[in-house]
């Protein structure tokens, strides 16, 4: 699993946010499009692509996309 693929998959759950805004350092909860629906999409994407189950609490405890990526790796 590559960080760059993870960022691409992460960005794929958004419709309005320009793709350039997604990087390892992106603080995803500050994105305008971040809401409970995109959060649910991220959880489902991680389940589908990486077969890992993360919780809402996991999302809350991560700040950047890279942090979330590390968390998924550690599962």
């Amino acid at each position, binding site marked *: 699993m590559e960080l760059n693929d993870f960022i691409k998959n992460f960005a794929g759950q958004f419709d309005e946010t320009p793709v350039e805004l997604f990087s390892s350092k992106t603080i995803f909860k500050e994105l305008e499009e971040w809401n*409970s*629906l995109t959060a649910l999409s991220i959880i489902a994407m991680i389940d589908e692509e990486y077969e890992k189950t993360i919780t*809402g609490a996991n999302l809350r405890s991560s700040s950047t996309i890279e942090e979330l990526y590390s968390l998924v790796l550690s599962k």
Partner: protein
Amino acid sequence: MYNPFSLKGKTILVTGASSGLGQSIAIEASKMGASIIITGRNHVHLQQTYNMLEGDNHQKIVADLANIDDIKLLVEQCPLLDGCVNCAGIAKLILIQFIKKESVEDIFNINTFAPILLTSLLVKKKKIKHGASIVFISAVSGVYMSSVGESLYSATKGALHGFVKGIALDLAPKGIRVNSITPGLVPTNILNEAKEMFSEDDIFERRKKQYPLGRFGNPEDIAFGSIYLLSDASKWVTGSALLIDGGLTLNGI
């Protein structure tokens, strides 16, 4: 003592009785004097429910209703019934873009196909007496409203809603009544997965505010509705959906 809601002398099958609403319905119906046949997938949990039933003359049958052979075995072992409550169900939160054939099949197998096939077989094998009452636990979700990620769950419950109306007509000449209950949110372990995804403090607290009566449902709130529909107090009621939702759908969400 005068009690039009008594279930004394009635034999009632309750599916999904291992936990949640099914367990509560089985217990409360036993307290109203019924002989209960409980069924569920998990032997240990089923035994726990069995131990909580009041009185004797009850029976437990382990069956996985997602499996047609288990449905057949269950029907074979069932005595003649005065009532049946279809409670077994699962909840799944899936956004539209993540739906796969397997997830559609899983949830429809348990929530919709199993109760339809069970009822059909019970009727075919003449296990349901004249004057009996069949109850389906549907939901407000899929009949009056839905929520994000609930499309499949809503679809399974909406399907049951239509099914109830149809078979109420089919079975009226046999003197069998068929009704459903559409509960609002009753926190039982059916919601464990959703709880993990969100957390109680955000979505659950926000949702609670949508209930004019100020709380989510208790399993007994639904069990008491089932008792009414199973009893002779409702003998002129068929094809109806009893709304038990703490006022949730008044808000026109």
